[in-house]
């Protein structure tokens, strides 16, 4: 379902026509378009936007942790089309329990490290990612530092009673 102010924008309307189930919601705020995408269809939506609407760059992939709300994670894809000079934010909501989403490495090669970073710092698994390892933290690290329930300060054994 599209919000009224999105009915006139080209790309969301085309996406809605292409697959009505893929697009869950959308909003234009502060001049930036954000689309909520069905998580299971993220790779297909990205491939469609890249091939049909010239979104030739992926600026970045990140996640937002809304702990303790559910769905807990939002995976954010920052898309950019240089020929159309247009930017688009795609969001996919994931549950706090076993967050998993399809990788978009097959669409843009550059997604590789960004998805590894989200996996490392948030613990979101990217399915069919070619090389899903930790990237910032050491391999033996326990936990995912950018989760909201991971403390900012203190040694990990001293904050358990906080």
């Amino acid at each position, binding site marked *: 379902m599209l919000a009224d102010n999105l009915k006139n924008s080209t790309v969301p309307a085309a996406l809605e026509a292409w697959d009505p189930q893929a697009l869950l919601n959308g909003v234009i705020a502060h001049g930036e378009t954000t689309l909520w995408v069905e998580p299971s269809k993220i790779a297909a939506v990205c491939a469609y936007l890249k091939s049909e609407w010239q979104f030739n760059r992926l*600026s970045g992939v990140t996640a937002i942790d809304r702990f303790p709300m559910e769905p807990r994670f939002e995976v954010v894809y920052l898309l950019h089309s*240089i020929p159309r000079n247009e930017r688009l934010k795609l969001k996919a909501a994931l549950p706090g329990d076993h967050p998993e989403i399809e990788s978009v490495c097959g669409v843009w090669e550059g997604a590789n490290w960004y998805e590894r970073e989200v996996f490392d710092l948030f613990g979101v698994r990217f399915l069919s990612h070619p090389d899903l390892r930790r990237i910032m933290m050491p391999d033996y690290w326990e936990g995912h530092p*950018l989760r909201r329930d991971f403390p900012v300060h203190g040694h990990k054994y001293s904050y358990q009673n906080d």
Partner: protein
Amino acid sequence: MSDYGQTPPLEPAAQDPSAGSTRRMVLNMGPQHPSTHGVLRILLELDGEIITNAQPEIGFLHTGIEKQAEALGWQQVVTLTDRMDYLTNLSNNLAYVLPVERLLGLEIPPKAQWLRVLLCELSRINSHAVWLGTHALDLGAMTVFFYCFREREDILRIFEMFSGQRLMTSYIRIGGVALEPPRGWQKAVGKFIRGLSSKIDEYEDLLTKNPIFLQRTQGVGHLSLERLLDLGVTGPMIRAAGLQWDIRKSEPYSSYEKFDFDVPVFHEGDVYARFRVRVEEMRQSLRIVQQALEGMPEGPWKADAPHVVLPDREKMKTQMEALIYHFKIVTEGFRVPAGDAYVPVESPRGEIGFLAVSDGTSKPLRVFMRTPSFGNLQCLTPLFEGRLIADSIACLGSMDFVLGDVDR
């Protein structure tokens, strides 16, 4: 980042009886290597002198800046952004401040916008000068290094004059700039830019037609434009591959649309083209600084938003209302309406942008830092493949990354 010191075992390559005994060799480059300008570890797989595979390992400088940002107030995060890319901290400040101002709906007065442009362009010259000096040093040309650091020193003096700090300036703040521009700054900036053009000519005299430099850089490190775009590379590397794309032109911010400058483009896509792009960008930045200096508007240097911007000292001491605002901002900070915003900025290395997410409180819910060095470093593997080890140093230098920016 995997465990340091864990070197993969050497494996004998498939034996070709005619070639005698050859074997594949795995070599560690870094984490402490002079030409990586930081702590980057690259696992090189070698067949003789040819690199058959290169895997970068990052994370040695990971300090959790994004996590820290969630514990600080909105204004305090500005100081963290200085410490990511320590060569061009003003661009980082600006890239953080813009999305927050967009969420707050602040109107920034022209004088503050002009000051931001002026300082960002000075830091672009600074960053490119450091890059040029160290890149030339890697390739064996030592003199350029001293010339470039001479100009860097002058720029750092200007930064010190404005903010009291040479490196961690934190001068650009939410709502404007931190302090009133100091007395006599026009004279200092004017004196610097009058001499700069001939100094850039000096760099070019030393390098542009230098046969040794040409041999080391021309035809080295070529990647096609499509591949670079797919890998998420931005900035001078893309412009050296023939794409005329500069965020200052395509999505102007902070009044860049009012300045007259060109976007240099070269089509060869090799290390030499990247050098040419950056030198030309220094000249264009000089033009922008000149225009900013001459056309600097009069007026306030911070926004008229008492709930965000600290009041003047004088007012704070004499007016009750200003004192209340001052107390509120210092103790509690200010609240930012819920939402998220992303504003891309052209830093000397490429696209930098912060996704600022607010849940309506006085601390950010999440600040995602899309840094150019992280995106650009991904092209290291294809850039190194099939090249000589000696060329890898030229390739590495031409990418111009800062490890603090990669690892955050």
